[in-house]
């Protein structure tokens, strides 16, 4: 098989090809590794595990040869975001602070994939500690969008999305705190899941904002995304917030969307949006109606304040979570540090080893948690989080899904984030309410703009109703064909 044909395959197709011996896992892995070399200028990977990958692929081939009862992901090459711990493989969080960190244990999600004998190709680039939406804030350089290398691949899981979109991996794990999977998926023409908070274990995910962080897959299709989600979901005694109930009350749909009720939040449509993105969203609404869905507009008061609440909560948690990186307890120490006392030493180390955006968010979090501001800002933001959760859940009591855009704009050109970071924060407005509410959302492609760049939409459902999202997405994908 030609490299192009190999790398176009979905997971199911590749798994069938492996079982029918049309191709081996070693050949799949070699094709991906070659593509990684060809696309090195995209900056998708921080670490490539060439030898480990080929060794694992050989084991998978032997298992297939022996006719063992195999998992569908066995022998399929994939990549993992560099904030998810991988046993014995460097995990940097795209930070100089963790440049040489080799975890002694693997994250539950990484171990679950390893147990299926999936082939880990390497660790993907990201915004440092997950803080950013363009994968420019990485100590290892920016990730470029494989569809147009002058543009951002989105962030913070930009490396994972670029790896899948560029044919360097069949799927990849990312993490989503406030849109970090959904944005890159939308910018790279992929399907990305932000699961229910608690559906996939966070054990071994290097924390940014623990009450919002989630691990999940980015893949070429809803079907692929579901296959990986099914392998990852489930309760984990190592993460007390992971409590996936194995029976959910999710509605099941097949063929069309005739019994599906969809809500569109009217406040979102009043937001400033790129004309092409708005048109693509309107066309999507029409397509859902054509498929039989009942689409109605609902008002969710205060939903736009989610941006403020998210940045108060996430920065407050980040300032606490990242306090350990001081070069004494955790983290590297740069050369030439000159300090008279312990506090000066820490200030020097953190000033030099953490990137600008990380320092900005830590400072913001410290400000929000200070004695005079804690009550007014932090506690109020937590109150808002409960408020928006109740509001969105009451919408989902009456409707099966909420449909919204992923991002208000086209993928931005690289180099713009630092000029105006807050304007980038504001553009996360469509993802943040669902992040705060802990609801599952699935980003999927809905069209192409004049310049050839993709546009994404997201569908959100009740907690633990990921299966409904995948069913609806597959019907929609079929209709697009």
């Amino acid at each position, binding site marked *: 098989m030609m490299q192009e044909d190999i790398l176009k395959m979905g997971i199911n197709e590749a798994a069938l090809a492996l079982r029918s011996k049309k191709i081996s896992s070693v050949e799949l892995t070699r094709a991906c590794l070659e593509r990684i070399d060809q696309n090195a200028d995209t900056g998708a990977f921080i670490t490539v595990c060439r030898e480990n990958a080929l060794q694992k692929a050989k084991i998978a081939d032997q298992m297939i040869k022996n006719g063992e009862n195999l998992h569908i992901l066995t022998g399929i090459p994939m990549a993992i975001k560099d904030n998810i711990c991988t046993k014995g493989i460097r995990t940097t969080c795209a930070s100089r602070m963790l440049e040489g960190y080799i975890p002694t244990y693997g994250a539950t999600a990484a171990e679950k994939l390893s147990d299926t004998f999936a082939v880990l190709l390497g660790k993907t680039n990201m915004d440092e500690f997950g803080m950013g939406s363009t994968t420019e804030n990485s100590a290892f350089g920016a990730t470029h969008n494989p569809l147009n290398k002058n543009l951002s691949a989105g962030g913070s899981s930009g490396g994972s999305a670029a790896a899948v979109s560029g044919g360097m991996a069949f799927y990849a794990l990312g993490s989503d705190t406030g849109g970090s999977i959904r944005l890159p998926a939308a910018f790279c023409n992929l399907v990305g899941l932000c699961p229910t908070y608690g559906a996939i274990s966070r054990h071994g995910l290097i924390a940014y904002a623990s009450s919002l962080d989630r691990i999940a897959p980015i893949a070429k299709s809803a079907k692929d995304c579901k296959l990986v989600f099914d392998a990852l979901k489930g309760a984990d005694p190592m993460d007390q917030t992971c409590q996936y109930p194995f029976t959910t009350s999710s509605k099941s749909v097949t063929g069309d969307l005739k019994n599906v009720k969809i809500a569109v939040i009217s406040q979102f449509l009043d937001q400033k949006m790129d004309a092409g993105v708005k048109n693509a969203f309107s066309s999507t609404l029409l397509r859902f109606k054509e498929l039989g869905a009942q689409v109605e507009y609902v008002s969710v008061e205060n939903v736009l304040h989610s941006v403020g609440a998210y940045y108060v909560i996430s920065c407050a948690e980040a300032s606490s979570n990242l306090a350990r990186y001081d070069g004494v307890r955790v983290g590297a120490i740069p050369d030439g540090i000159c300090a008279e006392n312990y506090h000066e030493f820490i*200030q020097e180390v953190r000033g030099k080893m953490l990137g600008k955006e990380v320092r900005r968010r830590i*400072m913001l979090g410290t400000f929000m948690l200070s004695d005079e501001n804690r009550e007014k800002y932090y506690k109020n933001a937590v109150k*808002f989080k409960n408020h928006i959760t109740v509001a969105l859940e009451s919408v989902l009591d009456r409707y099966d899904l909420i449909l919204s855009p992923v991002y208000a704009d086209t993928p931005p050109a690289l180099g713009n984030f630092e000029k105006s970071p807050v304007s980038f924060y504001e553009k996360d407005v469509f993802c943040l309410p669902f992040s705060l509410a802990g609801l599952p959302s699935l980003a999927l492609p809905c069209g192409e703009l004049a310049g050839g760049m993709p546009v994404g939409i997201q569908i959100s459902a009740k907690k633990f109703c990921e299966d409904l999202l995948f069913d609806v997405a597959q019907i929609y994908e079929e209709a697009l064909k």
Partner: protein
Amino acid sequence: MNTKDLKNISKLSGIKMSEDELASLEADLEKIRAMADAMAELDLGDATASHGVSVSELRADVPQKAFEHQGLTDAAPLCEDGYVKTVSVKGDGL
């Protein structure tokens, strides 16, 4: 917020920042504070309890993975009346 306040936050955060960086940060912090101020003015009332599972519990019907740190806790020093009892440690030691 003035530079003195920002220097104070920088000290509390354990992060050294240059004067230039502090100046560029000032405007960004003000914008975020404006968003937070607008949110603080909302009359949110008391939110009712959230739907769905909200309490973590290990379920008897879900097979749990072996607790991998069990070996470590088994080997932990024993305590008596809050004091650690000296135990012999296998291996080469230090």
